[in-house]
């Protein structure tokens, strides 16, 4: 939304990360192949924000070039620097290009600017944004001698201090429109004007970010914590500091996501968390990338545990695995969508045994009808089966051998024996409904091998429905 307006193309998928980095004012590392315009990204943004900007070529520059000449003035031995147009003292945003090529002698100055906003102990009060770029580490593994420049990996301790680590888009990441637009207007032609919308957006989120740092959302904290544990278990080392950094990044991203004003805010919270996670891990700097499938699997597991909305995906699976009384409970869960429940019920109807199906439907149909739990399609299936159970008219068939002493179907005989043993006799409701279920199953060629188990399940389901009915009536009264 904002980046396109200031003439930056191709960064659509990373726009929220970039905005989050602008909100947090923490250093960001951009990795990319040569010619991806990574070094100019902050230049364009600085122009839009009205900030003074300086690009420092980390491999070529010297300490003096950055600081200006140090001189001692006055009697108190205070060192001041004679600033030049090239010095970085009063700049508000800095980019250190190709930081992996930095000479060791300069590294201490650059790292103190990046991570402490100071040079030789003198604070840089105006400095806000410190970003750095480096070449894609994929290139390092090719022919090292082909590169004239000194390609070295950054030290892990240094990389740990970057908040976000993003990869600059390549040609494939540009959309067709962006490519065409780029060729017409020249790629990434900056709009040399202040962008008041962007300024307002960033300045609105900064105080909110400071607030949330003190009291982060529990779900974000839990996500950062658990993801770190799982990644470490999965063999990808994530330090404690990195885990805390992940939380800070997620807070900023969450804020950007919440206050996003564009029309195309189709991302869900899950997408934002995954974006934050992928762009916080440092492994991609060292060419030991964590497999994407591992990150996806861990992310998905976390989302299932932390966010109910994501659980819906597996709600049907949980419903299918649950016992009959638990199924009734789940159907009366008001937080679940009616259509999802209906889908789960239809799935159960088509993929369950006739005994389970009949038991659930016989016990729960009236209450499901009363509270309109299911949609019309599922309700129609339910009622059709319920009608068949209530009105049985059929034959219980069996074969009988000549000379056999027993007369009658042995399985039906077992059922009758069990029915007689029920408390309350033949006039009790428990007897009547068990009898009804038994004859429904027997006339549908289902042999009831364990009538006790079937009847007790039916009774449990009726008890469960009775409890729900009582609870709902009480709720209505209240």
């Amino acid at each position, binding site marked *: 939304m904002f980046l396109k307006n200031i003439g930056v193309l191709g960064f659509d998928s990373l726009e929220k990360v970039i905005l989050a980095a602008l909100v947090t004012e923490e250093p960001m590392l951009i990795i990319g192949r040569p010619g991806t315009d990574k070094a100019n990204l902050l230049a364009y943004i600085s122009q839009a924000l009205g900030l003074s900007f300086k690009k420092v070529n980390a491999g070529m520059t010297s300490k003096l070039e950055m600081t200006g000449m140090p001189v001692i003035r006055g009697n108190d031995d205070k060192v001041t620097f004679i600033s030049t147009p090239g010095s970085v003292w009063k700049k508000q945003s800095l980019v250190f290009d190709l930081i992996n090529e930095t000479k060791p002698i300069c590294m201490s100055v650059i790292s103190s600017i990046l991570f402490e906003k100071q040079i030789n102990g003198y604070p840089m009060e105006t400095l806000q944004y410190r970003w750095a770029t480096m070449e894609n580490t994929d290139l390092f593994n090719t022919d090292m001698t082909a590169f004239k420049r000194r390609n070295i990996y950054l030290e892990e301790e240094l990389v740990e201090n970057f908040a976000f680590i993003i990869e600059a888009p390549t040609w494939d990441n540009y959309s067709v429109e962006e490519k065409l637009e780029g060729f017409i207007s020249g790629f990434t032609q900056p709009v040399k004007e202040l962008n008041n919308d962007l300024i307002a957006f960033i300045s609105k989120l900064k105080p909110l970010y400071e607030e949330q740092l003190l009291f982060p959302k529990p779900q974000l904290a839990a996500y950062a914590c658990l993801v770190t544990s799982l990644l470490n278990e999965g063999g990808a080392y994530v330090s404690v500091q990195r885990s805390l950094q992940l939380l800070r990044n997620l807070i900023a991203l969450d804020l950007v996501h919440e206050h996003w004003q564009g029309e195309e805010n189709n991302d869900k919270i899950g997408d934002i968390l995954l974006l934050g996670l992928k762009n916080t891990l440092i492994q991609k700097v060292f060419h030991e990338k964590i497999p994407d499938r591992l990150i996806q699997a861990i992310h998905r597991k976390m989302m299932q545990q932390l966010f109910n909305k994501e659980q819906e995906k597996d709600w049907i699976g949980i419903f299918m695995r649950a016992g009959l009384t638990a199924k009734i409970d789940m159907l009366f869960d008001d937080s679940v969508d009616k259509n999802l429940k209906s889908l789960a019920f239809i799935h159960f109807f088509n993929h369950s045994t006739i005994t389970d199906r009949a038991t659930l439907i016989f016990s729960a149909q009236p209450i499901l009808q009363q509270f*309109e739990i299911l949609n019309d399609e599922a309700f129609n299936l339910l009622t059709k089966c319920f009608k068949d159970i209530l009105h049985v008219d059929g034959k219980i*068939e069996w074969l009988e*051998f*000549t000379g056999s002493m027993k007369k009658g179907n042995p399985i039906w005989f077992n059922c009758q024996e069990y029915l007689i043993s029920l408390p309350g006799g033949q*006039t009790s*409701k428990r007897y009547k409904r068990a009898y009804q279920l038994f004859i429904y199953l027997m006339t549908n060629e289902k042999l009831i091998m364990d009538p006790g188990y079937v009847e007790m399940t039916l009774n449990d389901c009726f008890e469960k429905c009775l409890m729900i009915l009582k609870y709902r009536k009480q709720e209505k009264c209240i």
Partner: protein
Amino acid sequence: MTNIFYRDWLYKSQHGFPKSLHVSNVYFPDEVPLPDRVNYYFRSSEPFSTYEEYLFSLIVNQGWHSLEEAKAMLGLPRERHIVVDSKEKIGYSFSGINEKLVIRNMLVLAGCGENSYHPEQPLIFSDKRMNRQIELKRIHLNEFYDLEGTKN
């Protein structure tokens, strides 16, 4: 022995004779006795082109202006019911047609799906729906689940 009946008997004596027990039961705890049950059916004594036209002509005869008014005047069931085909069919004899009864039956039949009736369901005047003889049954929850502690 070539007697086919003997061979059949021999086969059955080895594998068993088919037997069957006929069972029939209706489980409606609050079943209303037959004479008081309401059957919904439709038969016209006059020729007509479509069901809708015929229904509207009857409604106009009654001095009503719309379907909603007719529904309100006739006191149709206001809750969801289970639709059951009547087992005891009533002969289609109209002696002195009660037009209100015909309107009510037409409205209920058109509003009933295969298995359930809902007062807000759209009316569909199809042959399949109109040529039925049905009863509406409603399960009373207290009775079905024994909520008020009636014995067992």
